[in-house]
């Protein structure tokens, strides 16, 4: 996979679908963190167990906005169970692929959806459909990116993922994130 955004990504970035908010939403989910550069929020309006309407708001890069947009298209009109079948891979494929280092954006979108579903279920007195904290947006970087990245130099490949060692922090961080964060080993871009 190249480092280039596909035409589908650029289309969803320039003309995002379902941007906005739902005032009387049945479920709202938010994931991400401005520290790491992306925050994604999804609003769901249900008709029975079918998703009648869905909106999003996203702070993030082009891929973050495009994955938010495509996931709203993918889930609209589906039942909750059908929507939960949508994986990060489905999101990335629907966009014709993502550059390896942007794969976490597709995880973020899938997690935002799950978080919104959990919010709805909580209001119904139901247990969560899945754990967002253990399914957070860095999940899947390893397998998906490594696969797509096979031909690359290894700079971005095989980003293992670990829980943030600071106890109060709910983020899970990739090994790469940790390495980059440590100044001595940082591998920064050309200016």
């Amino acid at each position, binding site marked *: 996979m190249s480092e280039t955004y596909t035409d589908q990504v650029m289309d969803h970035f320039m003309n995002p679908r379902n941007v906005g908010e739902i005032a009387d939403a049945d479920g709202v989910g938010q994931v991400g963190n401005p520290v790491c550069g992306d925050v994604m929020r999804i609003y769901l309006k249900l008709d029975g167990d079918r998703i009648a309407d869905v909106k999003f708001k996203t702070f993030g890069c*082009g891929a973050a906005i495009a994955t938010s947009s495509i996931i709203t298209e993918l889930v609209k009109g589906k039942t909750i169970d059908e929507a939960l079948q949508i994986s990060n891979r489905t999101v990335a494929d629907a966009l014709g692929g993502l550059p390896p280092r942007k794969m976490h954006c597709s995880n973020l979108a899938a997690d935002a959806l799950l978080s919104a579903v959990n919010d709805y279920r909580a209001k119904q007195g139901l247990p969560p459909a899945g754990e967002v904290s253990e399914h957070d947006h860095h999940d899947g970087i390893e397998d998906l990116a490594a696969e797509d990245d096979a031909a690359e130099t290894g700079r971005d490949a095989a980003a293992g993922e670990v829980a943030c060692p600071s106890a*109060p922090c709910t983020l899970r961080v990739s090994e790469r994130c940790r390495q980059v*964060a440590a100044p*001595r080993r*940082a591998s*920064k871009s*050309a200016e």
Partner: protein
Amino acid sequence: MNLDQGQHKDTGPSLRRVYLDHAATTRVRPEVVTAMVNFMGEDFGNPSSIHGWGRVAREAMEQSRANVARLIGARATEIIFTSGGTEADNLAIIGVAMASRGKGKRHLITSQIEHHAVLHTCEYLEEHGFEVTYLPVDADGLVDPQDVAAAIRPDTALVTIMHGNNEVGTLEPVEDIGLVCRERGVPFHTDAVQSAGKVPIDVNAMNIDLLTLSAHKMYGPKGVGALYLRRGTRLEPLQHGGSHERKMRAGTENVPGIVGLGVAAGLAYDELAETSKTLAAMRDRLIEGLLALPNTKLNGHRTRRLPHNVNVSFRDIEGESVLLALDMNGIAASTGSACTSGSLSPSHVLMAMGNTHQDAQGSIRMTLGRDNQPEDVDYVLERMVPIVERLRLMSPLAEGTLRPRGEETPEPAAQPEGSQCACETEEEAPK
């Protein structure tokens, strides 16, 4: 950034193309190309050769040396040609460190906002037994010369503080820092890659002992630069072989590149006053126009600033998304956002200046050059307004957004500095 949006470019006839990334690299001037081509073709000689071909190459190379020296007020014999700014920084820092090791000097002083060519070289020396002090900067990105004075120890081998910052454009008080170093007898190196040819430099008046410059930032070719080394300053070469460059940098010289640098440096010197004035006028208008947008702040010092640098942060939006939208409008810029750096941490320069992660993520750098027209500024300002508005409408961090029930939006205030995440705590440890 690595993402090549070439295939997405609007090919419509009305699209204006505005290159505002001159701090990354510049277009080689036609005069430079013409001069260089000659030294790949007819005058292809090796300057170390005794014969006519060699003498022609040698003469051209020495003319270039004189031109580079003139640009910074040095003697021609004090100029060492290198493969670029990064090599010159490495040669200066490692070369001085190695030469002073025997005298028991194992300490270096630099700043937290240096280019990685300096920072990572200092970190390399730390791994080999040297100690490095990374001085902080104020909110404008300025190093305090008093901090330099206080950090100097009997075993300090070198002070290296950049002249003009590549990201935020702040011009450091190198004259005062140079004076402090001179008084204490410590060699002073400055990375002038961004400032050479844009602001006047006089290595004697500024008490500079070593200075780095690069050809491709001043309309010369990539792959060639120079290190100024004041006569009498001790340096160990990094590259060993023949006796090229007064034995400081072995290897047959890149004659076409050096000729290109020489022509570019000559033109830069001749046109410096005028170019600087023109660029600063466009810069100021661009800054003024951008700051008229709500929730926008300038990064870097307002007046002690490179004449071609504009750097602003748009609150609540992320830099890469702005870059992409600008690119769709034919405008090239860059960002300090983590998304484009290939890392998960935003610009170390913006963080050292005390910005929140969020402000750093929303930073956009635009760097002007000699091909830019005043109309380019109008065009960029006109296009920027709807781009920023659209992205803010999409942002859950912008005001007036419905919050999810029972959840705090993670505003910067909810992320106390140095608090929670490994990304943060490690990053904020003093380097």
